[in-house]
């Protein structure tokens, strides 16, 4: 069931002429506009509202804190966007973050680069397991990554144990310093967003990924090595989750495997979907995903600025998620 609605998505071919057949052309255009730009509009609106109603919102401190706090979800969401682009899903990202962060303090004795490298390797390994299970064995992505999520969190707790503080000066430098006033973690996150965006738009792999997500059989008939593309995608997703985990450990100068990355998969999936990447695959919108992650962060922050209770905040988020997804796909499905 692929709707080939290309509508200027970052990485799909130009719009198909069959679009013109739709009877409610103008309404369709409007819905398209909302779907493509809704996340940016919502983000802009929320920034304006905060500028008006929140004291001290327009300060460098607030801005920096928001950017620092969004980095883990943002980085994880980049990988998630790729996986969702292949019509998959990855529930294991939070556990992978915890696993990578748990490994870092264990091997910090060999120096920060070695410890970070091993942490990232854990992400590659779990991504490889997920990719092989999904691509070669044919397990559903949600089940494969669910198993890894449960086992990975257990493993992180086993090797990480209780909260470990990290005292390595290199790692602390990475987590707390920056270039000028911009922290390294933020720089890394946005650099990764640029790289992933470039990969999706300009590389063969990016094209293949979108083709695989659009229609696996057609992609296979066109000579694309579907399984390899899938495995690579899950490996990238695992690697990015590990990066997020290591950066978070460096920033907090500690690793708490029971808490770190908990439920981040849900935030990341929400960011991707709000950003306009459909769960049915075949499109990847990286800029939208970045905006989606920023939007979620800003919603949370706004609720905190105004002392809204956690309970209310969660219910508001629930409503926003459903509304956003309805805007993304509701009309199309309802019409059919």
């Amino acid at each position, binding site marked *: 069931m692929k709707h080939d609605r290309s509508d200027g998505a970052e990485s799909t071919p130009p719009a198909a002429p069959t679009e013109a057949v739709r009877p409610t052309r103008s309404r369709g255009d409007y819905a398209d506009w909302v779907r493509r730009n809704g996340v940016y509009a919502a983000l802009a609106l929320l920034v304006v509202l905060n500028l008006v109603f929140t004291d001290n919102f327009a300060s460098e401190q607030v801005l920096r804190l928001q950017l620092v706090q969004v980095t883990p979800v943002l980085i994880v969401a980049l990988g998630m966007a790729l996986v969702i682009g292949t019509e998959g899903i990855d529930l294991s990202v939070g556990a992978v973050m915890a696993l990578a962060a748990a490994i870092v303090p264990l091997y910090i004795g060999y120096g920060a680069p070695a410890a970070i490298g091993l942490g990232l390797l854990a992400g590659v390994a779990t991504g490889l397991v997920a990719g092989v299970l999904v691509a070669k064995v044919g397990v559903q992505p949600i089940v494969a990554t669910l198993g890894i999520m449960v086992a990975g969190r257990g493993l992180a707790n086993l090797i990480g144990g209780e909260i470990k503080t990290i005292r390595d000066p290199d790692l602390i430098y990475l987590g707390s310093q920056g270039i000028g006033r911009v922290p390294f973690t933020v720089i890394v996150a946005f650099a990764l967003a640029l790289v992933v965006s470039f990969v999706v738009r300009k590389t063969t792999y990016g094209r293949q990924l979108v083709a695989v997500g659009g229609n696996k059989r057609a992609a296979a008939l066109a000579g694309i090595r579907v399984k390899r593309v899938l495995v690579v995608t899950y490996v990238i997703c695992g690697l990015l989750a590990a990066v997020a985990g290591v950066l978070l450990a460096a920033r907090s100068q500690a690793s708490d495997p029971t808490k770190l990355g908990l439920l981040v998969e849900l935030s990341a999936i929400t960011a991707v979907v709000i950003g306009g990447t459909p*769960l049915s695959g075949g499109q990847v919108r990286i800029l939208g995903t970045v905006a989606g992650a920023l939007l979620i962060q800003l919603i949370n922050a706004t609720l905190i600025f105004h002392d809204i209770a956690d309970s209310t905040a969660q219910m508001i988020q629930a409503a926003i998620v459903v509304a956003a997804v309805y805007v993304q796909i509701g009309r199309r499905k309802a019409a059919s």
Partner: protein
Amino acid sequence: MTTVANPPAPAPAAPARRRAQAARLVQRQGALVILVGLALIATFSFDSFGTSGNLRSILLQSSFLAVIALGMTFVIMTGGIDLSVGSVFALGGVLAAWGSQHSVLLALVLPLAVGSTIGLVQGVIIAKGGLPPFIVTLAGLLLARGLLLALTDEGSSTYKVPAGSGFRDLAQGRLLGVAFPVWFVIILFLLGGLILRRTSFGASVLAIGGQEDAAALMGLRVARTKIVTYVVSGFLAALSGVLIASYTSSGVTILGVGTELEAISAVVLGGTLLTGGAGTVLGTLVGVLLLQVIKNVINQIGSLDSDWQAVVSGTILLVVVTVQQYLSRVERR
């Protein structure tokens, strides 16, 4: 899920068919084989495992997840998923404990009504609105947890079931030496099996999961059937919450985090395909018991950290689905 084209299969010869049948048997009963094997090994390895006290505690502790997983089975059979059950379970427990301070009836009706309503809303949005179940029930997870926090002063107050309240007997009582929650599970699973195999609703559930478009063309009421499965799932999750509130005599606010994943694991272990259209409720029960026995065995091995439980459960899930996948290919051949 990998839709690599299969060449049209030739008509299966007799031996091939027999092999396919054997494969199907193992695929459906794989969890049972592991469960029996594990239980046998545990009985011979640990003196305390086979005692009636331990077996009873395994059954009792499984019953809360079993009730939730039964509802999940129906949802997954239609090709859906319900991530909200863990939160609804916790919310049900808190509502029951709060209600028990007023009357036993309120302690029963309120949580079940709220759970069913959450299921109804989710079902309508999914079936009529056409939104993906994953996202809608994810929102349901947040909503139910938010309601719970709102009811409990942001999770800081715990409602207690009054001492001497008849509500405590619901889960703390026994009949013929078997705890009430276990009887609940037996009755509910018998009912669930009957509904699935002997009623037109059950047939619709499996048909919709098998192929939704075909089911709709046959005149089955797809939307209504789906909505009912989400209502049942919400109802059963809340019922499980009622039972745990009665059992612990309080509304514990931190319960149910990750329970939805345990329930999904149990269903998948039990041989129900996540793509829908196939499965048994008995398989789900086996899946639940397997998860609980793993927990119990790891507790028996005193030297092992309880974190191993997650590692083993996750690994077994992956192994079982891999074998299932492999066997279903043999079956198709």
